């Protein structure tokens, strides 16, 4: 099944093909580019802490398994995939997020050879007790590196304050203790449950031939069984756990994140709301606002201050982050301004400027091979296509944003996370 998805606004298009193996192919050849960027992703990330298997049994997964699996997929019976990519010159990597795992390469030459390596890598698991044990050493060091990272800690501390049950609050890499529980069997169980081609998509953008992709898919990908693993949705309360959390680490100026917990909706709504939330973040406290100016002039924020949206399958958080000598005052100022806007209405000029700015920012994403591939994959998993977000920015109205401000930015459902320097003894 082949669809051509077009954007009239951009005069551009991409292909969506449901391959007979079950895999969704998202293909966007781009003229004038030297490189191609391929992203093979599965809708399986760190938030999957348990699932129900085909026999109806509840399977618990140790924290950090999705990320561990990502590392181990690079190994096959013949050795390490990096060694194979070395022969094509491609630059390869992988990442695990809250709700997906993706394997990628970027290349300017030898596209077919690199894509063949990627398809084999993702579809041929190979785990042994020895290789699992070796990885525990490497990932243990990665976890320790993150333990020392104030930026990483301030975020997960915020998640712990916002979420009572949702596995979003658990570090993507797990802990030294949880990864010690992972065995080759754990990895096979999760692989078989979630690395099902029906649950996956391959997004490619840039300099490549569509026919080459189709030929390789026919040759390498075997039809997948229907997906049987059932996800367990967490019954997360709307309220937050606590409004403030603090940790001490060596930092110069305290770091903070202020998060607002929204009630998640359908996947597609979460995707479109993400664009609206970005416009709102800018309307509330972008550099063009009176609030930004007063906080900056008061010396409680500096130019590291920025807004961000984290949304996925069953979560939506908007947040402000930065450095501050008085994060509590920033929190108070933001909540005060949000309440005022909810009471008195959004400034129309500020809304229009923010809408244009977000539109301009999204437009730039369609000019890069890596961001086109990422957008195709993310929006596919979000139940839409990559032009949906650009249209959402272009089509956002004052009324929609007024409604969204009321539902997604509730100071009662917010929290402040701070990392400060240890007090001198």
């Amino acid at each position, binding site marked *: 099944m082949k669809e051509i998805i077009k954007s009239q606004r951009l005069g551009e298009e991409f292909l969506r093909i449901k391959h007979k193996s079950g895999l969704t192919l998202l293909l966007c050849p781009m003229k004038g580019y030297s490189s191609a960027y391929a992203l093979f992703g599965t809708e399986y990330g760190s938030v999957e802490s348990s699932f129900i298997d085909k026999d109806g049994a509840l399977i618990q997964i140790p924290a950090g398994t999705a990320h561990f699996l990502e590392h181990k997929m690079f190994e096959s019976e013949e050795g390490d995939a990096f060694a194979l990519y070395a022969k094509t010159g491609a630059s390869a990597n992988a990442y695990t997020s809250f709700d997906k795992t993706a394997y990628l390469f970027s290349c300017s030459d030898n596209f077919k050879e690199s894509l063949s390596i990627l398809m084999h890598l993702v579809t041929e698991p190979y785990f042994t007790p020895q290789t699992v044990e070796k990885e525990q050493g490497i990932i243990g060091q990665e976890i320790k590196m993150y333990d020392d990272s104030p930026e990483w800690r301030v975020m997960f501390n915020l998640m712990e304050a916002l979420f009572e049950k949702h596995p979003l609050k658990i570090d993507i890499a797990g802990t030294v203790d949880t990864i010690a529980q992972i065995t080759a069997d754990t990895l096979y169980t999760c692989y078989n449950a979630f690395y099902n081609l029906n649950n996956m998509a391959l997004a490619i953008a840039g300099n490549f031939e569509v026919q080459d992709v189709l030929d390789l898919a026919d040759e390498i990908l075997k039809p997948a069984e229907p997906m049987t693993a059932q996800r367990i949705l967490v019954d997360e309360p709307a309220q937050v756990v606590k409004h403030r959390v603090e940790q001490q680490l060596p930092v110069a100026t305290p770091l903070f994140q202020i998060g607002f917990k929204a009630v998640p909706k359908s996947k597609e709504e979460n995707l479109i709301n993400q664009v609206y939330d970005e416009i709102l973040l800018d309307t509330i406290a972008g550099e063009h606002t009176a609030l930004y100016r007063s906080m900056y002039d008061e010396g409680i924020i500096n130019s590291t201050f920025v807004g961000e949206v984290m949304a996925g399958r069953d979560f939506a958080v908007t947040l402000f982050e930065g450095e501050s000598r008085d994060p509590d005052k920033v929190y108070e100022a933001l909540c005060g301004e949000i309440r005022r806007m909810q009471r008195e209405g959004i400034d129309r000029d500020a809304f229009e400027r923010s809408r244009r*700015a977000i539109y301009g920012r999204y437009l730039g994403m369609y000019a890069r091979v890596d961001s086109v591939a990422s957008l195709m994959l993310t929006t596919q998993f979000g139940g839409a296509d990559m032009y949906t977000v650009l249209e959402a920015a272009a089509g956002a109205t004052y009324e929609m944003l007024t409604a969204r401000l009321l539902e997604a930015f509730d100071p009662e459902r917010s929290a402040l996370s701070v990392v400060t320097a240890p007090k001198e003894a």
Partner: protein
Amino acid sequence: MNNTLRRRRIGEEVYFSSVTDPKFKHNRISVNYILPLEKETVSANALIPFLLRKGSRECPDFTLLNQKLYSLYGATLSADVSKYGGYQVLDVSISGLDDKFTLDGEAMVAQCAGLLAGLATDPNLVDGAFPEKDVELEKQYLIDSIEAEINDKRAYAINKCRTIMCEGEPAALRKYGYVEDVKKITPQSAAETFLRVRRTARVEILFVGCGDCTPAEEIMEATFAKLDRAPIALPEQVRVPAAAQVKQEVERMDLSQSKLAMGFRTGAAQNMDELSAMRLMVAMFGGTPFSRLFVNVREKLSLCYYCAARFDRITGIMLVDSGVEAQNREKAQAEILNQLEVMKRGGFTDEELENTLLTMKNSLYTVSDSLSGLEDWYMAQLMQSTARSPQEEAELMAKVTREDVMAAAQKVTLDTVYFLTGEKED
């Protein structure tokens, strides 16, 4: 694709360079003031870009300036300081959508260039001083940036190693300067610094994007024609060929993973062929996920999550760094030096050489697919007084032989070992 640089002198030591490609949707324009890196001026200079981004004589109010930028489809204004060997670069840049993608047909290039020209050359000085409030806030922010270095332990360790290694050379200086000197800046002294920078620095203006750069070039030429310029020649870059003796330093801090950083010298000034060989050698040694360091220190010995080598072609310094457990330090250091010996005696396969070359070619060809890639590439070229395209660089690299790589490795000597570790011995 034509990603070559077009460069033209538009004033007294003022150059306008452009690289255009229709595939993009934005244009980035940057004004770069290039100055010698000196202890006496580094801190005062570093404050300038952050003051310039606050407003110009034409648009002195920061909030109104940002309202203008937001209306221009979120054109982004940035200002920063960077360091190329012994040079300090102050930049103010603007990135905006091209005219052809606007909803109402605005002349984006001309508007962005006009705003940028005002911000970079004509700040809102009143009675020979920057606004007091701005100076106070931006001084604090600069001090915070200097002190924030400690937040990222990996970068902190690398910088510390370089500082110890290059003591007495400009390369030892920090790009943002020093807290005690930042504190001394006044609204008047900042204005004097700005006027000195504007009068004496070499100026490189870079336009990268899909649009027509002509309006930007005309605006910049007219802007600089009105200014009083007396450029001072930049000194030659300093390069120390070899280490006299190995310096060692251990620092303790509250952290869970220790950081090992090793600084190496790589010989006297090199011609282009030797430079290509050195770059390839460093990549084979520790610049790829199949490099000697990655495969042996990380994969075989499972000692760390990262162990990598990087090369600064201006100073000729190679830095190797790794995050390890304190008790594994000796093992990691021994293996790093052992792998360097392997490189020196040619104990690598032809396949490793070919594969590294492929990887380097791949990353060079990818440069031209993003605006930031192109801008960084050509800025680094201009700092070395060359203007090679990534493609030309790839061709040079393809000529490097196994013997060239061995010869490059043999020039490498260890200079400094710096170790950042936890408070207590394990």
